[in-house]
């Protein structure tokens, strides 16, 4: 049995026919070609596949695509707007919070959701919000630095969250 599914991803609506056992991650990566969301463990234990579902970060590997039908989905590809990076993305670039980059999409999704909900989270809230996103490269130190910088930047929207000039376009 296949199901008709309507997915709104990064503001675009897609009508798809999918088997019900397929996950949102499968459909994003295979059917929509949105490979920014990563398959790290396929069991909801690493966070590399995190996407926003109606504004909340969830593991897309544990969400059946049929269950996401009719809901708003944002993936890492949808974070940058108007050609500019999201302040959280900029902070990750600037602080060296990105190494191999495989956990990065999920991290960014989690952090943007946190800051949307709580513009000034405490240290404990930052640690807890990211506690479901595994990173094997950075030891989290620079990731946490980047989050703190993004918070400062977003608190003062007048300031350009620009990245150091040496970054290549």
């Amino acid at each position, binding site marked *: 049995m296949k199901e008709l599914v309507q997915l709104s991803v990064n503001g675009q609506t897609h009508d798809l026919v999918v088997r*019900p*056992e397929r996950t949102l991650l499968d459909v994003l990566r295979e059917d929509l070609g949105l490979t920014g969301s990563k398959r790290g463990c396929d069991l909801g234990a690493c966070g590399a596949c995190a996407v926003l579902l109606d504004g909340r*970060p969830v*593991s897309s590997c544990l*969400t059946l695509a049929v269950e996401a039908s009719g809901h708003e989905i944002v993936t890492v590809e949808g974070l940058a707007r108007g050609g500019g990076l999201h302040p959280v993305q900029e902070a990750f670039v600037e602080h060296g919070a990105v190494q191999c980059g495989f956990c990065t999409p999920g991290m960014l999704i989690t952090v943007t959701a946190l800051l949307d909900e709580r513009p000034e989270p405490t240290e404990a809230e930052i640690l807890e919000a990211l506690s479901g*996103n595994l990173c094997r490269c950075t030891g989290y130190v620079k990731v946490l630095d980047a989050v703190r910088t993004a918070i400062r930047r977003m608190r003062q929207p007048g300031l350009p969250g620009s990245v150091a000039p040496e970054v290549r376009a």
Partner: protein
Amino acid sequence: MTATRIEYHAPSTLAQAVALLEEHGHAAAPLAGGTDLVPALKHGVLQARHLVSLARIPGHREIAITADGGLSIGAFATLADVARSPLVGAVCPALAEAAVQAGSPLLRNRGTLGGNVCLDTRCWYYNQTEAWRASRPPCQKAGGQQCYVNQKQNVCVALFSADTPAVLITVGARATLAGPAGERAVPVEALYSGEGLQPLAKSGAEILTEIAVPAPPARSGTAYLKHSPRDSIDFPLLGIAAAVALSGGGTIASARIALTGARSAPCRLPELEAALAGGPVPAAGDRELAQLATRSLGALFLTDAVPHKRRLAGLMAVDAVERAAALAQGWRTR
């Protein structure tokens, strides 16, 4: 992901959902957040061929204070909703503590309170992939004959590892089940069979719709402590909930303590409860009491009954009682 083909149903009323579950019997399973069910589907251990989604059914997500000052929580509310609810924090802080420690933030945004209460039991064999399990004949829970964990008695001893039920049991919460014969409410404690194979003492066609937490008695407090290797993602190796009411004189009037992660159901510690009743509030880390608590566990642990886990359970029980009592001491009438 296995090649198993499944059928998906998205009823828009509870009655339709119950009817679908009844129609397909053992071949059907209700789908809420999916954080436990989807891995089971991927591992090929889910018997169900029909998934009955609860997502399109309106309601059953609200968290409200009842007329008598208790809590009514829709079972489809996510664990994140429960964790961040100021109402839950006010009436039953331990429930918020348990909810916020379940899984990881990503899982709590999908996983529901009902799903956590109805969590399947787990073991090292059953929760593996089909390819992994091919190295050994299936266990009882996977449709075979044996239990690898308990080979002597050969009875499935898969562990119950959800965080919230221990709290719900200590506060005497009741669960509302909607089934073919209508609604019924049972104490959460009575939801569990104690069997690893079929941990829930309810019919497969019944859907958990609401959790009712009674108004806390005066001068009472609750606490939940979790022991796991990491402070997120992991299931509890041990979870201890305590609900304590104090007498006017400041001694313990009643204590209810429940443990998760030791047996195929969350379980009370009646011997410890009795020992505490009428006595003084213990100091955190009271080692004598902790030893008593450890002894009171008796033969509670079905598996991994290493001495340190029993000792830890004793320490945690005392700490949980102390924390709950501290809240009770700060009790103010509303």
